[in-house]
């Protein structure tokens, strides 16, 4: 095979392998290139190229190895983290309950409500004081 013929083929196969890795379930190219050669719907020429080009076969095998290692690594990491801790989940829910919409609403309205109540109290007190003062003044004037 001349280099003029192989180059475009190699780049096409490389991009096919990359796409395979990005799109496929992650065992589609794992291990070796044989599943690729027998895969249904394989673009024409890819299988032949893989069986004849050691470079591309090497890339396929390398991607397969990386794929399997990544699977193992993530399984290890997933196992390390363990299943969700119910204690942590419940603790989060308790915190959310405390910061729930009703509690937030109460907190939001509490301050203006308090101000309104105190304002009314002061206003009524003032009115009562004024009324008392007027009554006392009138009584004082009447007594004179």
């Amino acid at each position: 095979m001349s280099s003029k013929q192989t180059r475009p083929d190699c780049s096409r196969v490389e991009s096919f392998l990359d796409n395979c890795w990005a799109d496929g379930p992650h065992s589609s190219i794992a291990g070796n290139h044989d599943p690729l050669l027998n895969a249904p719907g394989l673009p024409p020429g890819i299988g032949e190229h893989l069986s004849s080009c050691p470079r591309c076969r090497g890339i396929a095998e390398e991607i397969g190895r990386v794929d399997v290692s990544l699977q193992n690594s993530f399984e290890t990491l997933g196992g390390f983290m363990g299943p969700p801790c119910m204690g942590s989940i419940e603790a989060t829910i308790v915190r959310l309950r405390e910061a729930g919409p009703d509690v937030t609403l109460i907190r939001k309205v509490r301050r203006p409500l308090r101000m309104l109540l105190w304002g009314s109290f002061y206003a009524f007190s003032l009115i009562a004081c004024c009324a008392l003062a007027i009554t006392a003044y009138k009584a004082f004037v009447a007594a004179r």
Partner: protein
Amino acid sequence: MEHKPVIRWNPMTDSKESTRSDSFEQDAFWVRMILREMDPAQREECFRSLMVKYWRLVGVMVAQRLGNDRRDAEDVTQEAFFRAFRSLKQLSEPTAFLGWLLKIARNLATDHLRTKRRTVSLDALGESSAQLQGALQSRRSPEFEKAIELNEETTLVMRALAELPECYREVVTLKYMQGLDGREMARPLNEPEGTIRNRLFRALDKLRRSLDKQKACKS
């Protein structure tokens, strides 16, 4: 090299494509239920479902960022869920819940790391900066070392993963933890499919290069 068949702990990786896209619809359904402010018990059930579904994924992402410290990772994960749920009203697209949650977790992990670095540097004022750097670089909990028996290949891959930029590591983690491809990732991450695919290709390229370099250094 022979590759042993792998037992997958995550059933999502084996499910069909439609099931995976339904999974984001399910997230959106739970998010809408929470936002509807209905019965508190039902709302809490939705919180619980989302936490159970994504706890491990968020935990792994955070653990990778924090140097595989499990206790810290759990604390940050819990805080990430709390903040995500508390400000759920700000989420404009309910199907993008996962991407949003991961962004919150990433920011929290960065903050946590920053705080921890500051604490270490204050605690060890007498130590030289080189020693400090070394301590931070090699920070990996003994619990982690004990909990897993790393074979050589897995160790190399984990090191290569740790060297990946955050955005590349995220897509690789989603691919292997949730079994998503580039098109499916675009939805929860709220990014164009082309961007995600590019990240995947670059991540693979960087991983291959990094592994080659590590193997060359060893040999």
